[in-house]
Structures are given as structure tokens and as C-alpha cells.
């Protein structure tokens, strides 16, 4: 678990009570150029402008698929696989790039993303894309589905697989999330981890920090620099309690939800 003493001031600010807004951070295209899936992402981008939300999610997605999730194309339908649910379905470009990098989908699917014959929409459809656990796009659905998935695994004695669900801080505006946060804490869903990409895009902010919405309901929480792969990895794997866990990944751009 990353401690507040070791993380950046921006992260500490997010983890502490706050009600301010934050300045835009580093240039994202430059960051992406050196990223492991940068070339694949460029194939999807095909000259278009991507919103900052695409880049803000990329590092968490990569760390999850590269180092955390126990799922491969060969085990994508196995009952014992870890589940990853992308709730903020608009963060799809990085998701498709990572799925291609890990062999779930052919890279040449990326070249026609959104086309009339494409399986890759601007929001993912689980029935069209191998490895995609849920179709999403309307905000506030992933966490409830993740709670149900975690309960379903537990009810069948599948105690090994973990359920990860990725949301955005603006997505937390949707009240359905707060139904799920409260219940998951009460139910002690230890096989559930939520990742909240906090790019300060919630219109009215989260005074007191995103993590506090979870911890008050009995979750464990870690707030880390969302660009720092080591910090993300230790936060995502530092979950050994009997409670659900949230990782708040703070990133510097906040222009789009």
C-alpha cells in the first residue's frame, strides 16, 4: 500500500479534504508516444483528436492487463478468470489498444474503429469484443454489475477470481454508484476492487476526496499517482483484507469527464 508520504503533492491534495480545481498537466501526446501501447493507440486515433480522458486511463489499464489481471485470451471465458469491467465506457481507445497488445483482439481491428463493419464502437459491447466483460457507455452501470459479479462468484464458491471495475471521478456523480458503494461495504465484498480515475472532472468536485466516499462505507482505499506504474501496481495488489478496495488514480488533466 502506498503511503501518503511517498506520493506527489497533487495526490496528497486529492487524498485530503479539498474543494478546488486543478491545472492541466503534462502534454499527453508526448506521454503516449513512449507508452507500451502508444503505437496501437495511434492506429485507433488515425489523426483524430482524443480527449484527455483517453490518456488519463491508459496507465491504469496497462498496469491491470500487464501485471495484475489473471486473464488471457485463452482464459477469457474461464469461470476462474479475473474480471475487468470498464464502467467509463468512453475511455475505450486505450482499452482497445491494450486488448490488442495482449492478444484479445487482432490489431487490425483498430484501423476501422467505429466503422460500419467494425466490432469496436465508441463504447464497448461485450457481445462483439473478445475479452470485454460488460458493454458500457451510460455512466453508473459498471459498479453495480461488478457487485453482482463479485456476489455471483462468491455464491458459486469461486473464491480465487477478483473483480476489478474502472470508473471516473465525474462518473461518481451518478447515484447508482453510491447504492453500490454502500452495499458492497456492508456485504464485505473482499473480491471487489474499484479503480477511480480522478482527473478532477466532476463538475461539483468531491470535497473530502473521492476515497472518502468509499472508506466511510467500510472499503479500504489507496490514492496514488495515476501515471506511476509501480504505485498503481502496489495499490492494485495491496488488497488483502475482508473488505472491498478502491484505488483512486489521480491524473493531471481534467477537461473531459
Amino acid at each position, binding site marked *: 500500500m502506498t503511503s501518503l508520504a511517498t506520493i506527489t503533492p497533487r495526490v496528497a491534495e486529492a487524498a485530503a479534504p479539498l474543494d478546488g480545481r486543478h491545472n492541466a498537466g503534462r502534454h499527453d501526446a508526448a506521454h503516449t508516444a513512449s507508452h507500451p501501447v502508444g503505437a496501437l493507440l495511434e492506429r485507433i486515433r488515425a489523426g483524430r483528436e482524443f480527449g484527455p480522458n483517453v490518456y488519463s486511463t491508459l496507465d491504469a489499464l496497462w498496469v491491470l492487463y500487464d501485471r495484475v489481471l489473471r486473464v488471457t485470451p485463452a482464459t477469457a471465458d474461464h*469461470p476462474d478468470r479475473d474480471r475487468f469491467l470498464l464502467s467509463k465506457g468512453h475511455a475505450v481507445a486505450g482499452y482497445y489498444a491494450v486488448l490488442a497488445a495482449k492478444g484479445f483482439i487482432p490489431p487490425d481491428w483498430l484501423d476501422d474503429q467505429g466503422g460500419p463493419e467494425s466490432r469496436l464502437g465508441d463504447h464497448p*459491447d*461485450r*457481445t462483439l469484443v473478445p475479452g470485454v*466483460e*460488460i*458493454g458500457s457507455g*451510460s455512466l*453508473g*452501470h459498471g*459498479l*453495480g*454489475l*461488478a*457487485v*453482482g*459479479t*463479485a*456476489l*455471483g*462468484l*462468491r*455464491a*458459486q464458491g*469461486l473464491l480465487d477470481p477478483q473483480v476489478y471495475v474502472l470508473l471516473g471521478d465525474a462518473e461518481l456523480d451518478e*447515484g*447508482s454508484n453510491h*447504492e*453500490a458503494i*454502500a*452495499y458492497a461495504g*456492508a456485504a464485505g465484498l473482499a473480491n471487489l476492487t474499484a479503480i477511480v480515475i480522478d482527473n478532477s472532472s466532476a463538475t461539483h468536485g468531491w470535497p473530502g476526496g473521492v476515497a472518502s466516499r468509499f472508506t466511510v462505507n467500510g472499503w479500504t482505499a489507496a490514492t496514488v499517482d495515476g501515471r506511476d506504474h509501480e504505485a498503481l501496481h502496489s495499490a492494485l495488489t495491496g488488497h488483502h483484507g475482508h473488505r472491498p478496495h478502491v484505488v483512486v488514480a489521480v491524473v493531471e488533466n481534467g477537461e473531459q469527464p
Partner: protein
Amino acid sequence: MRESFIDTTTALLAEDPRTALVLADISAAAFAPAARSHPDRVLNVGIREQLMLGVAGGLALTGLRPIVHSYAPFLVERAYEQIKLDLDHQAASAVLVSVGASYDRAAAGRTHLSPADVTLLDTLADWTVHVPGHPAEVPDLLRTTVGGDASAYLRLSTQRNERPYGGGGDLVVVRDAGAGAALLVAVGPVLDAAVAAAADLPVTVAYTHRPRPFDTAGLRALAGNEVILVEPYLAGTSARVVAAALADRPHRLLALGVGRTELRRYGSAEDHDRWHGLDPVGLRRSLTGFLTPALV
């Protein structure tokens, strides 16, 4: 019907480890014994209907067969997007079971009335909808739908007919008025009132507890050129199905049911039957008007 649902669901939870039940406090006390026996598969999420449906979708994605239960307006209307997205869009399925119907709890007022539930679900594809007319119809319908893989909605009511009708929901002729008679199709608990209203009129009465998929083959076999629908939810809900089934045949259709206007009146379910013209007297008035067109 609610007791029948509780007993059958409790049995199903014990018989089939694939079965799960998701509640939002409604009927939780009645399911307490089942919850003690199957704590991992009887899940009361509290008063959280969006989560109730989301959890059902997640359970289904892991291979379980969720039954989801609440009052009709909270189950179908409040969480409609979760039904559309957390079930249908995920290619996941569940069995939804409601109580309350159009106005079982008339004195509770608009918040607990759900005349539009079947109409709203009818905007979605491939749902089976059962509207039983008697508590004894419930166990078989529940067992069949839970035993299957498709999504289904069971709309339970405190209103009921004198006797149950078995079968899967194909049209059953209750009263045969012979060749050339108009065909009246009564859905669920409005049958007895419809039969009383038809009394000595040249009207064949058929019953179904399954408005979706509607038995269009049976309809085509029984119908002449005059069809009367009597439904215990929004009037006209099945009119499009009848019109499509008889598109190649000149016909007249009278679609009766609950009106759209908010009455802002309390009273009993029987009062609302009368106000919506679904009691024998009101139905009789509509039937005779339809069968004897006014002279011009």
C-alpha cells in the same frame, strides 16, 4: 399470488443452486427463512432498485439465474435503464416478479400504481410476460421461466379470477359463441369480469396469462373480423400485436384496459376497475357500443 411466489421461489432456491433472488427490502421478511438457508443466493440490497437490477445482471454474467422482485413501479419503471442495459445489453437475463399491478394498493396513490409496466417492458425485445389470473397459475409459470434462459416478467396481483387456467399461455377458449362471433381476449385477472360482461352477447371469450409473446397463431385461428382486447394494464398495450397478426384481414379492434389519465383518487382496486370501465358493467357498455355501431 405473492404467497405462491414466495413458496415456489423458496423451493427453487433449495432445489437449484443456479437460482438466486435479489430483493430491495420488499418481501424481505417473507424470504427470511430462504435467506438463512442460502445466504449467498438470497441478496437483499436494501432500498436500492438500480443496484438490485445491476446485481442481477452481474449474477447472470457469472452463470446464475436471478429472480428480481419488488413493487411493479420500483422494479420496472424506476430502474428501466438497468433492465435495458444491465440485462438486455449485456445479453444477460433474469426473471422479474412484481407485486402491486395497476392499482392493487389503490389507497397508496400514484406512487404505488403501475399501469404502464407491461407497456414499458414491451419496448424491449424478446421478453416473456406472464400476467397470471389466479394464484394457482403462479408455481408452474415461475418454474418454467426460472428453468429457462430467457428474460421473463411475472406480474402478480391481488386481483384474481375464480379458477386457474393451466398451460403455457396460448389462448384458451373459455366461452365459445360460435362462428362469426367477435373474439374477446382477456389477459389475466380481468377474465371473470369479461365473461360476465359478454353474458348473452355474440362474443367468444379466450383467456391468456401470457401477453408476450402473444399467441398470434391462436388469435388468427379464433378471430373473425372483430376483436376485443381486455388487459389489466394500459389500454392498447397489445393492440399493435393484434394489428400486425391480422394485417392481411380487414378487422375492427376494441382495446380496453387502464386509462392513461392520473385519476388522483384512492379507494379500492374495485373502485379503480369501475373508474377505468373494467368492471362487468363498464365492459358491457364498451362491448355493446363496439358491436352495435351508432347509426349515422
